[in-house]
Each structure stands twice: as C-alpha cells, then as structure tokens.
C-alpha cells in the first residue's frame, strides 16, 4: 500500500479553486481567518482582488457571500465545517437557501478525523443540518480527483451547495480520467454479498475492508456517495435488490447523515435492513485521526467485524 498517494481533500480544494479562478473571473472567495488551513490562501495569493478575508465572523461571511451572489458573481465561502454549518446556520437558511442564491459553501475539517483539536472542532452534524435545507445540494467527496471535479462542477450549477471536506490525508482513489456526475453514486468495486455505502474519508476504509473480506470469500460492493443530496435512489434500489446485506459508514453522527438518507429511500421504496456505521450520537475527543476512527468504529476493522457477524453465507 506504500505506493498509493495520499492527499487531504482540503488541499485538493485549494489547488482546484486556484485553477477555477484562472478560468472563471466570476469566482469570488471568502474565508474567515482560516485561509491557511482551508487552503483558500492559494487563490488569495494570485487573486487578491477577488479574495475577502472576513475575519473571525462566519455569520457575516455567509451573508456577505449572499449579497455578492446577487451581483451575478459566484462566491465560494470557506471555513471549518463546525463554523460554517453550525455557527452560520441561520444565515445559510435565510440568506442563502430560502432565496436560492448561488453561494458555494466549502467546509473543511469535517468529522472526528479533525483529530487533536477535539470535540468542539469535530463537526458530526453538518450533513444532517445541510441536507434538511430546501434548495441545498450537499456533496461530500472522498479523494483528490473527485474533489477537484466537484470544485469546478458546483460552479456550473445554479443554487446553493455545501461541499464537505476533510483535514485528514487519504488515498487518491480515482484516476484523473474518472468521470463523475452530481447525484450519481460511484460503484468502486463489484460485489454480490454486501454493499457498503461510504462517503468522504470513510470510502478508503470501505475499500480496505472489501479487499480483506474478498480474501475471506465475501464479495463486497463499495459505493462512493459523493452526493448526499439529491440522493441516488436508483443505485440504492439496485444495491438493495442485488446484494444481501447493506451497510453505511460515515464520519458523522448516525442521526441525520448518510445512513439516514439511505434509510429514508429504503423505507419509502424497498424496506430492507441497513446497518448504519458512524458516530453513535456522542461527541468526539482529542486524539489522532487513525486512533479516533478505530475508537468510534468508523474504520475498516469495524466494517470487517460487523459484516462478518451479520452476513449469512
């Protein structure tokens, strides 16, 4: 595994945003005193006139972005997920989503994999908060290739977007030539026994688990859910019909996140059990990301154990 390249999706964001800024003069970037961490500083250096550092004032940043969007510009507003989706929730609801404005909120440092900063900075409720907002599109990308695609793609769609990114460096999963489509899940591995729906940093864990389970005679279909909303109903239905066991894994509270979104579709269209893996309605703690993923049961090890004890071969 040593030859697999790793990169944090926040880094991919910074690089892609700079590229996008070169191509599209309508891109405006805002940050809240975290440009070095969210990597918007790459854009800021080359385009100082189109970059606004709003200071430690996330509510002001989001509403300013909505004002900017009414001038036919495309603002990308970035900070840590906890401050974007949490602190500025009402601004996102009333000044962005209700008026359906073309504001792109790119939130980095999502989930417990933020690590050592601890629970106050580990945003595990943002998917839930953002996907319940009418007009909002919610993305959660898993690697460098996909994130770079998403950063440009969301500039082409009209309306609010929440893009969830991570601090943790994870494997580059896809070749540069890989095609993606908003609202279409990606079937990474073929499998008939189990489907693992994963998103963001947990996709790598699902892939690792599938490799190990394959050796033990269990074939696993890994599905990368980069679009949480709108959710890909057809793929959920297909997997529910074609595989025996359904599992979801996310670096997010199991209430309201990826597992909930899939459950809603299953309840409506094809009632079937889904094993939801994620943070079990508790706050995180300090520690390194790998240790935390293990402690909170969102890693390959836990997936393997869970699948083996639930599958009837």
């Amino acid at each position: 595994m040593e030859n697999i390249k790793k990169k944090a999706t926040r880094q991919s964001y910074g690089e892609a945003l700079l590229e996008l800024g070169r191509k599209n003069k309508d891109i405006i970037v805002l940050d809240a005193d975290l440009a070095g961490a969210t990597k918007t500083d790459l854009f800021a250096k080359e385009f100082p006139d189109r970059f606004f550092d709003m200071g430690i004032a996330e509510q002001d940043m989001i509403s300013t972005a909505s004002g900017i969007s009414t001038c036919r510009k495309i603002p990308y507003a970035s900070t840590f997920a906890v401050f974007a989706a949490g602190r500025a929730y009402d601004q996102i609801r009333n000044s962005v989503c209700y008026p359906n404005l073309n504001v792109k909120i790119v939130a980095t440092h999502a989930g417990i994999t933020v690590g050592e900063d601890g629970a106050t900075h580990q945003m595990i409720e943002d998917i839930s908060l953002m996907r319940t907002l009418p007009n909002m599109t919610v993305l959660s990308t898993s690697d460098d290739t996909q994130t770079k695609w998403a950063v440009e793609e969301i500039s082409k769609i009209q309306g609010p977007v929440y893009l969830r990114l991570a601090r943790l460096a994870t494997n580059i999963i896809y070749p540069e030539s890989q095609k993606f489509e908003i609202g279409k899940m990606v079937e990474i591995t073929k499998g008939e026994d189990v489907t693992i729906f994963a998103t963001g940093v947990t996709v790598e864990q699902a892939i690792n688990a599938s490799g190990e389970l394959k050796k033990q005679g269990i074939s696993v279909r890994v599905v990368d859910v980069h679009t949480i909303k709108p959710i890909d109903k057809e793929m959920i239905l297909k997997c529910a019909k074609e595989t025996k066991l359904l599992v979801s894994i996310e670096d997010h509270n199991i209430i309201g996140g990826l597992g909930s979104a899939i459950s809603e579709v299953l309840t409506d269209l094809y009632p079937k059990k889904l094993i939801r893996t994620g943070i079990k309605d508790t706050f995180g703690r300090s520690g390194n990301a790998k240790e935390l993923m293990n402690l909170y049961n969102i890693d390959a090890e836990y997936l393997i154990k869970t699948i083996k004890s639930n599958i009837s071969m």
Partner: protein
Amino acid sequence: MSKVEELEKKAKTIRKGIIEAVYEAKSGHPGGSLSIADILTVLYFNELKIDENNPDWEERDRVILSKGHCSPALYSVLANRGFFKVEDLKTFRKIDSYLQGHPDKNKVPGVDMTTGSLGQGLSIANGIALMGKLQNKNYRVYAILGDGEIEEGQIWEATMTSNKYKLDNLCVIIDNNNLQIDGSIEEVMSSYPIDEKFKSFGFQIINIDGHNIQEIMDAFEVAKNVKNKPTCIIAKTIKGKGISFMENRVEWHGKAPTEEQYKIAMKELSNI
C-alpha cells in the same frame, strides 16, 4: 408644489398603503413601517436610480430592508413606484399572494434581497457594495436597520467589514423609533449611544429627524459625497408615525387595526 411638499403628500399615500395592507391581512407590522415611511418615500421617489420596468437592472441602486418585518412600507413604495399594482397590497400575507409576510426577492419585483431574520442585511449590503467597487460600478447600496435590530451581534461583525473595505458606496440608515417588541430600547437592551458606536466603527455619522423630508434629502446628498468611509444616518423617528393612536405605542409593533381603527387611521391620513 415644492419637491418637499410633493414628497410629503406622497408619504401620506405610502402610509395609506401600509394601513390598507396590514388591515386586509389582519396581521403585520404597522408601527415600524410607519416610522420608515418618510425615509422610504424620499429614497424611492427622489433618490434611487431604479427602473420599475427592469427591476434587475445591473446598474441600479439597491435597498436592503434588513428590518424585513416592515415589508408593508417597502411594498407600498414599490407599488406606488410602479413595480406592481397598488391594489395587490390588499393581498398582503394571504395564501395565494406573492406579497409574503417578509420580503422575498424571488417573488416581489423590486425587492433586492430576501430578509426577515434580523441582523443579516448589513452583511448582504456589504457584499453588494464590495462587488460595486470590484466592478467599478456607480450604484449605491442602502441598508435600513432597526434600533432594536442592532442588538444582533452580526451587525457589528458587518460594520467591521464596511469599515475595512472603506465602502463609501454604502449608506446605513438606522430607524431609531426607540421601541422594540418587549418595550423601549433602554429597557430591553440598550443599543445607545448608536451614533458613537457607529462612529467608532469607522462610519461617517449624520443625525436627522427621520420625518423631516428636507433633512432626509440633505442627508442622502451629504452621504454621496463622503469618500473612503461608509455613512450611517441615524434617523430619530416615531413608531406608528402619522396615526394618532399608534404613535409611540409599543403594542402597535405587530398588530392590525380593527375596522373602526382602520377608518380612523385612513381619515387621519386624508386630513393631514
């Protein structure tokens, strides 16, 4: 008729529209709508560069009614300025009407931004003013805030932004009617001294009587010539201004007149 007299007459028409809308809706916010009626009249009938036939005109001046609950006043000036039919004011807040309880930019022609949740309008106005600067456009941005509304912390985040970027194309207007829902500003949560606060945040301050048409006109003129800093006009106003039984009465913040009260109000507006 002088310009001032003409605008004073127009303000009466605007107030009638407010009363009409709130009476027909049997709900709404007449007090704060009446206190900004003169300011909005001067803006929409003397000051703003706008086109009722092209509400989304890119070069237009913008008004962000941050105190969005005073939508009856905004709707009344927009209707009387020709953005939509005056008779539609009677549909305010009704189930099949485009005139929502709080202003909705996607439903009402001439509304520059959807507002309602207090404290967000100045940030929005900053965003528009920043883009005006970036694109060398000449439009001006007006943000109308309540004196109770500025208790919201986001307002003070936004004032730092207005100051940092030297937004001289921005004019903030504080409707200082001294009343909020639970009582007077001093009783509930004093935002005073408003002028000194905004001054220390880098604004040019203009104190005026918010019901004196000439003073309002002059203030906008002065604001246009301020360079390298934003302006804040603090307009001393009377909540419920123009209707005797509503003036300075906190209970008229958010309720509709009865049929009898409606008749008295309309008569008073005809007599003045």
